[in-house]
């Protein structure tokens, strides 16, 4: 059974029954060709909702069409999108990563350690590089730990990542004894350069927005056009069939948790740069739920086997814009949450009718 014989080569050639939700044939048809109407509506349904939200705001929200508003929304949504991209890969394999918020907190407490006094690393610039590389490396390794628990340990993803959800934030708090660290108290001359990640401007655009766009584009390409991307979907569609078809299922699963950890680390650094401080108790709080919500609203089912990075991006934008619209019209926070909850249910209901 060849694994490289073109698109759809992983199509299971065994007579194993497939559940309706994870029928990889339907996935291929709707994702690749988009020939049938259901596929078209599925692809553009969430996009349509986003357009409606934008139109509503253009008409009813004062000063909506300004660079400031656009920047504010994109800045706020950047970290959620970045984490949700990793979550999309994990969910595409049929898993879930509850640890992302805690991993962000770990990155958040590690980065300042290298900015305290860059002198000990020879040059301040090395301290800056370490402040960026070391935390991301650490969260990627923690992601690898998640991946090992799921693959080698054979644990269910919810339980496997629940371990670091609990212990990860604990680690972060223990490292700094739970204390908030403010960057203005740091000695390194590189602090302004570090803060540039979240507070700088490149041609009027915040760096984290650029980072977000780059990550979304790369991830969309990886999922759509690479062998790895096809392996991810095959693993989520039917792991045992994929394994029989020659897909290295365990390596793929391991890799997606590493990706998720890697992206959570980046998001953690952005958050502390925006805040000008690092609080192990609050960085990344509830991020796992926000990211999962963005993925689900974007049209990626939690059953795995299907995924859309662009959809996740749109899903995060929908939630962000919904929140922005309600706040702009002075709707209380409580109502806002109820509306977002309703939107999540509406999104999965709509997707269900289209798939069935």
């Amino acid at each position: 059974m060849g694994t490289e014989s073109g698109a759809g080569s992983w199509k299971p050639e065994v007579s194993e029954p497939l559940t309706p939700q994870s029928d990889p044939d339907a996935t291929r048809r709707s994702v690749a060709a988009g020939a049938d109407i259901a596929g078209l509506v599925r692809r553009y349904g969430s996009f349509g909702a986003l357009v409606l939200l934008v139109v509503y705001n253009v008409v009813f929200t004062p000063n909506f069409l300004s660079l400031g508003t656009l920047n504010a929304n994109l800045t706020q949504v950047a970290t959620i999108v970045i984490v949700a991209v990793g979550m999309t890969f994990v969910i595409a394999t049929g898993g879930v990563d509850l640890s992302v918020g805690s991993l962000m907190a770990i990155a958040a407490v590690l980065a300042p350690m290298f900015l305290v006094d860059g002198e000990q690393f020879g040059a301040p610039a090395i301290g800056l590089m370490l402040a960026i590389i070391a935390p991301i490396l650490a969260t990627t390794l923690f992601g690898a730990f998640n991946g090992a628990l799921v693959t080698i340990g054979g644990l269910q993803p919810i339980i496997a990542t629940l371990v670091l959800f609990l212990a990860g934030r604990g680690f972060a708090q223990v490292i700094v004894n739970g204390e908030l660290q403010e960057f203005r108290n740091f000695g390194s001359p590189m602090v302004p350069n570090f803060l540039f990640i979240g507070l700088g401007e490149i041609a009027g655009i915040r760096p984290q927005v650029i980072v977000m766009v780059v990550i979304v584009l790369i991830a969309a390409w990886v999922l759509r056009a690479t062998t790895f991307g096809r392996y991810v979907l095959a693993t989520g569609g039917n792991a045992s069939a994929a394994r029989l078809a020659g897909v290295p299922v365990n390596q793929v699963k391991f890799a997606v948790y590493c990706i998720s950890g890697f992206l959570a680390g980046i998001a953690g650094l952005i958050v502390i740069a925006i805040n000008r401080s690092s609080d192990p108790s609050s960085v990344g709080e509830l991020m796992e739920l926000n990211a999962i919500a963005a993925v689900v609203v974007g049209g990626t089912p939690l059953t795995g086997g299907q995924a859309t990075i662009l959809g996740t991006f749109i899903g995060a934008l929908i939630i962000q814009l919904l929140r922005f619209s309600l706040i702009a019209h002075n709707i209380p926070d409580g109502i806002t949450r109820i509306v977002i909850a309703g939107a999540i249910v509406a999104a999965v209901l709509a997707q269900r009718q289209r798939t069935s």
Partner: protein
Amino acid sequence: MVSAAVPDAYSESETTARARVVSAIQRQGALIALIALIVFGVVRYGENYYSVYNIFDAFLNNNSYYALIALGMTFVIMTGGIDLSVGSVAVLAAVMAARLSAYGLAPALLGAVLIGLTAGLINGGLIARFALQPFVVTLAMLLGARGGALVLSENAPVMVDFAKGFPQLGMLHLGPVPLPLAITAVLYVIGVILLNQTRFGRHVLAIGGNEEAARLAGIPVGRTLIAVYAMSGALAGLAGAFLAALSFSGSPTGAVGWELSAIAAVVVGGTLLTGGVGSVGSTLIGVLLLGLIFVTLNFERGMGTFQLSSFWENVIRGVFLLIVVVFQSRLARRLET
């Protein structure tokens, strides 16, 4: 008696007995750990450790919220589902109870349970009737119920009305046993009976074992699922009422992460997240074990053996969960082969 077969049969039964002991140790790992921890505590810390007040009021009563939520979660998980909304629903119910406490104990208690039940019915209805995934539906309810709590409380903790008797819920004792604990104990007994002695209990396990097969066998899958989520919601509502009564207020920001603590307790007890198997008793053991670890740590800290900050608690909880689930999955694999 002195036939040649006897030694053989004897040694064979000895090996199976040893296998049984090994398997029992693994299956009852949580119970054994719990007993070991209790013995260790009694020996090391003496009378303070097992004083009536410490056992009933400080320890058991304060774990009654988790116990209630974990009870509902056990049934949900046995159907192969999950209920992420319980913490938010408990908070919504706590605010409701505080709001209704001006009308007396019964309306406040009833209001809290009813709003929890309603949330659970919505969860169950969406899951059963529209075939939506429990994870997504209850995630939405997690957000929605928290939003409801914020609206109902107007973003600030609602103080309980002391004049109308609601705080009695947290203060009354039946002998040495505080009322919330007594109610929790009764509900656990009902839970055991429900699971082991009724058709409903068998339906729950059948659905978790194989939902499609259960449907084909004529089991009312939809109704059973709705009942299970409604139960989880109502128990979360009751936990919310206890929370309001014991803390004298309904705060919209409390009970964050309760759902994951409850799931951890269920898993530590030995119920598999895949559904189809589980027991109410093992969940109780899981709740007690996770609770007792912290009591023991506190005692140890009190003796000045080490100076661990409270931030270590989550690390220890996570590591403990890890040890237990790795242990369990190895057992599960061995049972399969």
